[in-house]
Structure formats: C-alpha cells, structure tokens
C-alpha cells in the first residue's frame, strides 16, 4: 500500500517537473529575451526603462547565463510564490491571476461532479435495461455530447438563451457581485451561475463514462453472486445497487485521471466564449500579447493543479478499492 502511494507520488513529482520545464520552454519560445519584450512594451506605453534597470532585471533572471541556470533561477522564485511581472497588466502575475485560479478549480470540480451525477444513474439504467429505447437514446445523446466541441455547445446555448429567453448567459456572477468582495451572497450567486458552464463541460465527458459504467456493470451482472442474491429473494434494486454497482464503481473513480485534464482544457475554451472570470481568457490574452511570464505561470499552475487532483483521486481510489490497497492488480 505504501509502495503504491510512493509510486504515484513519484510519478506526480516527475510530471510536475516535466510541466515546469514545458512552461519554461513556453516562456522562452518567443524570439528575444523577455527583458527586450518588457522594454519594448513599456516604451510603447510611453515610459522608459533605464539601461541600469534592464541590466538589473537581466541579472535577476540570469538571462546572460546558460539556459539551465535561467530555469533554476526562475523555478526557485516560482517555488517561493513569485511568478515574475506581468508586462501587459504592469502588476505581479500572482495579483493578475488572483481569484481566477480558484474559480477555474471550482468550475472544473463542478463539471466533474455533474459528469458523475449524470453518468452514474444513466450508466446503471442502460446496463439494467440493455438495448431498451432509453438505452439507445442515452447512447445517442452521449455521442452527440462527445461530438460537439465544447465551445460550439457554449455558442449554441448562448444563442438560444438569447433568442428564446432574451438572456445573456455568461459570466459567473451577476453584475452587482462582479467587483464585490467575497461574501455569503456572492458565493450563492456563484452557485447559481455554475450549473450552465458545468453542464456544458460535463456533457462531453459523460458519454465515455456512461459507456464505461454500462460495460462494467454488464460484466458484474453476469456474475454468479448476482444470481445468488436474486435466488435468496433480495429486492431487485438492492441486488443491483448493493453489490454489482459498488464493484463497477471502481474504474469510475480511476477515470478522474483522464477526466480532469480534459475538463480543465475545456474550461479554458468555454470561459472565453461565456466570458467566465477564470484563467482562460487571461491566458489567451497573455499569449496573444506575448506576456510570457503570465502565460507560463498559468500553464504551470493549471498543470500542477491537474496533477494534484489526479493524485488525490488515486488516493480516493485506493480508499474505495481494497484490491489496490492490498497491492493486487486486476
């Protein structure tokens, strides 16, 4: 059991390291070093940077030294929570990102909860009533969810919200709470706005999950213990829910590992369409304006959060599946 945890932890750390290298590469990709860009950016807005200041900045990030030294200087500052300045906003990156990171997390978690909430009952139903009309219907809806890119779904819903209900669906807060400090009312407002983006994000992940759940449950339903339970006269719903569903649930939890990166990716795109105050629109703007410290920080933070989420899901999986705890694979 400990070996399993250590193994997952090791992989998570290696992944985080890989993500940090990729983020650093993304920061380095645009031509010229970032101080050049910084100076160009500042002079475009009218203010001047002295030669000394530029030299100081270069020294701070070791831009005159080897690439791995630069990486080391950057990453050691990042670990201390300093992601560098954002050129476009003229403020530290941490300030720009601020609440947006947590809102991204909230939206992603909500999307995963909705995915489970939809996939679990439908998966069970489709397995128990295999080849029924509803089974085919759900499969079809799932497929459409799979086939429609997130942003298209968001666009279409936005359009119909506008045409049919004269609603402007978008954002995570009502106008009066947009700039307000956090309060109970603002949280409630957030919860009211969450279902739509969560549903849009969930729909594309649900199809696969329904099919996994259905297939697993079908396997379990054919096992002799189900026949035994029936023979002993247990109520049908108990026969299904108490044993086979529990056994079929394990791979369900393990899918979070692939679901999470998927949902985080999707949240970036639909945030742009629905103008949600997550890191998505900021990342896009930063990349277009080549504000690389900001972009690199967002890529890094999203990657790390995804890895942490996956690691936590591994722990949960271990908790609910005794076979993994005992070190048995199968």
């Amino acid at each position, binding site marked *: 059991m400990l070996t399993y945890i250590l193994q997952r932890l090791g992989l998570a750390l290696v992944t985080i390291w890989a993500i940090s290298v990729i983020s650093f590469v993304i920061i380095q990709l645009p031509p010229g070093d970032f101080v050049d860009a910084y100076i160009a950016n500042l002079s475009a807005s009218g203010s001047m940077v002295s030669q000394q200041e530029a030299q100081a900045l270069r020294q701070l990030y070791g831009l005159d030294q080897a690439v791995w030294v630069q990486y080391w200087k950057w990453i050691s500052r990042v670990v201390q929570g300093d992601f560098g300045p954002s050129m476009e906003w003229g403020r530290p990156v941490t300030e720009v990102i601020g609440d947006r990171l947590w809102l991204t997390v909230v939206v992603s978690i909500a999307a995963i909860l909705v995915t489970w909430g939809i996939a679990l009952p439908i998966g069970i139903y489709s397995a128990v009533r295999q080849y029924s009309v509803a089974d085919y219907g759900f499969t079809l809806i799932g497929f459409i969810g799979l086939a429609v890119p997130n942003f298209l779904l968001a666009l279409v819903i936005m359009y119909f919200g506008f045409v049919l209900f004269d609603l402007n669906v978008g954002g995570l807060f009502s106008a009066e709470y947009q700039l307000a400090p956090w309060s109970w009312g603002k949280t409630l407002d957030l919860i009211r706005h969450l279902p739509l983006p969560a549903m849009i994000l969930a729909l594309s992940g649900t199809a696969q999950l329904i099919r996994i759940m259905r297939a697993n449950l079908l396997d379990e339903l054919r096992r002799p213990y189900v026949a035994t339970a029936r023979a002993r006269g247990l109520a049908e719903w108990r026969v299904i829910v108490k044993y086979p569903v529990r056994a079929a649930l394990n791979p369900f939890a393990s899918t979070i*590992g692939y679901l999470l990166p998927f949902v*985080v990716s999707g949240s970036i795109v639909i945030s742009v369409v629905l103008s949600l105050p997550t890191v998505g629109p900021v990342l896009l703007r930063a990349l277009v304006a080549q504000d690389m410290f900001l972009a690199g920080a967002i890529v890094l933070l999203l990657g790390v959060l995804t890895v942490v989420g996956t690691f936590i899901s591994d722990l949960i999986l271990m908790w609910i599946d005794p076979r993994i705890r005992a070190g048995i694979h199968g």
Partner: protein
Amino acid sequence: MSTLVQPEIPFVSAAEDRIAAATQLELTWWRFRKHRLAVVSGIVVILFYLIVIFADFLAVTPPHSTDAARSYIPPQAVHWFDQDGSFKPHVYALKGRRDLRTFKLHYAPDPTDRRYLVWFAEGYTYRLFGIFETKTHIIGLDRGVPEDALFLLGTDQLGRDVWSRLMLATRTSLTIGLVGVGLSLFLGILLGGISGLYGGAIDTVIQRVIEILRSIPTIPLWLGLAAALPNTWSVTQVYIAITVIISLIGWTELARVVRGRFLALREEDFIMAAELAGASRLRIIFRHMVPSFLSHIIAAVSLALPAMIISETTLSFLGLGLRPPAISWGVLLQDAQNLQAIAIAPWLLLVAVPVVIVILACSFLGDGLRDAADP
C-alpha cells in the same frame, strides 16, 4: 491455445472454406459490413473526403472576394418550380434598400428578377487537383455572376459567400485531421512498437512519458506552443506547424493501442512458429504481426480523427491556430464568436453542422471498425 478446443469439421462447405481461407482483413471487412450505422458513417466520411477533393468545384464564388455591399445577407431560399409548374430551380435576385432612419441595408428578394440555376456553369478559375486549370463549378446562374445573386448559406460580415468558404474550410480542416493522424500514427507505431517489442526499461520510460503527457491539460499547452509561431509565417508554414503541434500530443493513444497489440501478439503461437522457422525479426513484424492488427490500427485512426479535427477547430476558433486568410472550420466559426455576431447573423453557426456530422461519423465508423477487428 484455442487449437485444442476447436472441433474437427468433417464436411467443409464452400462458405466455411471461404472463411477458413480468408485473411484477417477480409474477416474484419465481413464483420464490419454487418454494422449498419458504421457502414452509413463510412459512406458519410467518404462523401466528406470527396468534398475535400472537389472543394473548388463545389464552391460557387471566389472564397476571398469581399464586398461591403453584400454584408450579412441571410441564406437564400431556392425555388424549385417555375410559375408554369415545370422543374426549374431558381433564386430571386436581391434588391438592397437602405433604411433611411437606421442606415442599415435591408435585402429583399425581387420576385420579378429570377435567376435560374445552371449545372456545371462557368465561374472563377481554379486548378482541379492542383493541376488542371478549369472554370467549371457545380452550379451557377444563367445571368449575372453568382457573387451578386447566389447566397445559398448567406454571407459573412465582409460579404463573403459562406457556402463557398465552407467547402474550402472542409478541405483544410479534414486534411489537417488526416495529416495530423498520419504523424501521430507514425510516432505511435514507432514508440508503441518499440515499447511493446522490447519491454523492460525502455518500455517503462515510454509508458511514463505517455502517462505524463496524458495528465497535462492539452489546450493550455497547445495554446502556448501555437502562440509562439511567428506572425510573419505564411499560411502553409502555420498549417504545417499546427499539424505538428496537434500530433505531438495526440500520438499517445495510438501508441497505447500498438503496444497492447504487440504485447498480445508476442505470446501467440504463430509468432513462435515463425520464429522457430527462422524468420527474421523484421519479417515477423511486417509479414505476421502488422497484418493481424492492421484493422485495429484503422479503427484507432478513425477514432483519433475526430480528436484532431476538434483540436484544430478549437485552436483556430481561439485565434491561435490557423489565421485568416487561411480558411478552416475554426476560422469560420471565429466569426461567430460573440453574441452580437450570432444575433445579427445566426446562419454563421451553420458551419457547426458539418463539424458535428463528421465527428459523429468518424466516431461511429471507428467504433464499428473496432468491434469488427476485435469481436
């Protein structure tokens, strides 16, 4: 292992004879034909690739020709029968009238000015298959140029014909998907094959790399890489770069499939037999192993295609993929990015329809192929 259980068949009928002699691909094909939905989807996919080949022929107006006077014209109704009831498809020419209060241009069909549709009419000059210079397009009008009167799917803000642009966008998006899958397939077979064939430390390393790649959210990564492409690059350069970026991350699933097949086949009796017969390693791989999992590969490819298409569309939609003047589904959908645009011109969202159809068709086709390859 299954050889022990197989009963002796005393009288072999002609049909069984055929099955016994059939290659793996033939068997897969026979099983595949039974999946109705998959066969229909396969036909749909083929039709779409015909559009790719004949995009210019199907377009009616030059896709880049702009005219502010034709801005945001809604899709036009085609009238199938003439006044006397004979079958003569035609459209009404549009008359623009400026509202003197709002200064907005309104278009009204003019029933007195009928333009009849003509098959194989002459239009703008293009090269069929990139070789033969021709002017023939699938339809045209009997009078005037189609730029002024034929708006099957309406026009966009700059007055460009959506139908013609959609045809060319289909070509770009579907070829990017195919080339991307090709690159992914190359990487997937190479790395998956090495992984499955050699096993041991190299397998562990490749598997870890795949796991790491799969646990990183792809969109931020793609965006980051795509944003670094210089603005000065030509359409072709960006096209190639975007394809490479997409396939750099897309190969993992294909590698997983290939590795799984290699691992499974390594233990098979016929591989052992080939080895004992003294066949070389390369011969075993290409003569014995690859044919037996070719159908799996085809299935994996057709399942990977939708992901590629979605990736390209999403990137271009966000403005970091293909950039105008390139025309792709994502670029077209970018015009419909905000509520104002789709409120004024909802028909711009029609571009989404072929996107969804192709992705669905590829998924069903891939599913059918997978079932057929692995009963």
